[in-house]
């Protein structure tokens, strides 16, 4: 019933839009900002496919309202690769470890990993794998994803050493 004007940063670019109060952040990113890398798997907060970064934190975009992101800094999977198309280390690791098949859950997992990779002090392997409990994958059986988690945790440990 209420419409709201919001201004936020998405993948480094300022965006202004008008949204309904009930418009979810996930829907707004997909239809308002054209970022269909944000996947809506369940829309009730259990699958993790819709995960994006809001002010550096991995959140389920289906459980936030677009209006709540007014003033926020949002990053989606589209914002991770370099301007020349080069892959973010997390994306590269997912590719190297064959950690995706259909790819539906993948952007969400990548966003969780990217948040962890940017966390200081670097999370342990246990913490990294524990963060995966918020994601569901129907295709891979998770082993490739777990290899990525261990790889990223090891890289983080190296940086710490």
């Amino acid at each position, binding site marked *: *019933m209420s419409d*709201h004007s919001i201004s936020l940063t998405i993948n480094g670019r300022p965006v202004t839009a008008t949204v309904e*109060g009930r418009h979810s952040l996930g829907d707004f990113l997909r239809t308002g900002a054209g970022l269909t890398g944000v996947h809506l798997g369940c*829309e009730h907060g259990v699958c993790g496919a819709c995960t994006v970064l809001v002010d550096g934190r991995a959140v389920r975009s289906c*459980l936030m309202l677009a209006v709540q992101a007014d003033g926020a800094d949002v990053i989606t999977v589209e914002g991770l690769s370099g301007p020349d198309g080069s892959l973010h280390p997390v994306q590269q690791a997912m590719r190297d470890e064959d950690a995706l098949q259909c790819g539906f859950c993948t952007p969400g997992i990548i966003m969780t990993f990217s948040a962890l990779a940017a966390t200081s002090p670097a999370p342990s392997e246990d913490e990294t794998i524990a963060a995966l409990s918020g994601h569901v994958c129907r295709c891979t059986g998770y082993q490739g994803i777990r290899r990525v988690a261990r790889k990223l945790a090891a890289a983080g440990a190296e940086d710490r050493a």
Partner: protein
Amino acid sequence: MKPAPFDFFAPTSVEEACAILADLGNAAAVLAGGQTLMPLLNLRMSQPLAIVDINRIAELRGVRLSADTVRIGSTTRQRDALNDASLAAALPAFNRALSHVGHYQTRNRGTIGGSVALGEPAAEMPATAVALDAMIEARSVRGTRTIAARDFYLGPYMTALEPDEILTGISYPTWPERHLVLFREVAQRPGDFALVGFVGALAVEDGRIARVGIAWLGMGPTPIAARQAEQALLGCPVGQVNARAVAELAIADTSPFDDRHASAHYRRSVGLRIFEQGLRDTLEIRNLAA
């Protein structure tokens, strides 16, 4: 799978939020972390005419430690509370329980007050508030009041909070520096709702249990204070605690029900075992440290 239309408000003060709730009462829902309310909205299981987002109210955020009390502002994010080192030092039982709440992603938005206010019978934060004798602050246009956690939970998802009240903070009494933590939880997967669990704290003085607070999760329509077990433990020399007998007393206060995740029988059997083991392990740690 989209919410029904509503009017959205994002007040920047508690007064403003209370005024809106006074106006709208049951037609409005308070939105904090959204990890519970948003699924209900998305599935249209809840269709409020208005949403009052309290995330922009600065005074509701933050942890304040004093000599006697730890006060947690209701919109403090679970993740921030979990990473707060001085909070972990002051209330290790709270920190331990909080690490089992939801998932990494839900803790980034979910709030302490949201979980306490929801009153999910199998949740860790309500049980922790009961175990640690927390005081819950509620505010409305009619004023401020505090409600003891042990009086707060009336039934599943039913609390003493009035429709026009906002939970503004939760205050926990502090414990002696070297006190002990009691915690066990059984869940099918990490992050799932507990099937059965308990949380508590215990302080030893001159070899006797001087202070104890324990509550169950998933063992009834609300968190359940293990009063008989607490009474049995108080004053008991640490070396003379009969963990099995105390566990039986702890179970005696519960009223678990059958649901699709576990039967009442399962909950009682497993509860008995984990309580006995948990109590023994905690006291043995203490004996090793002494």
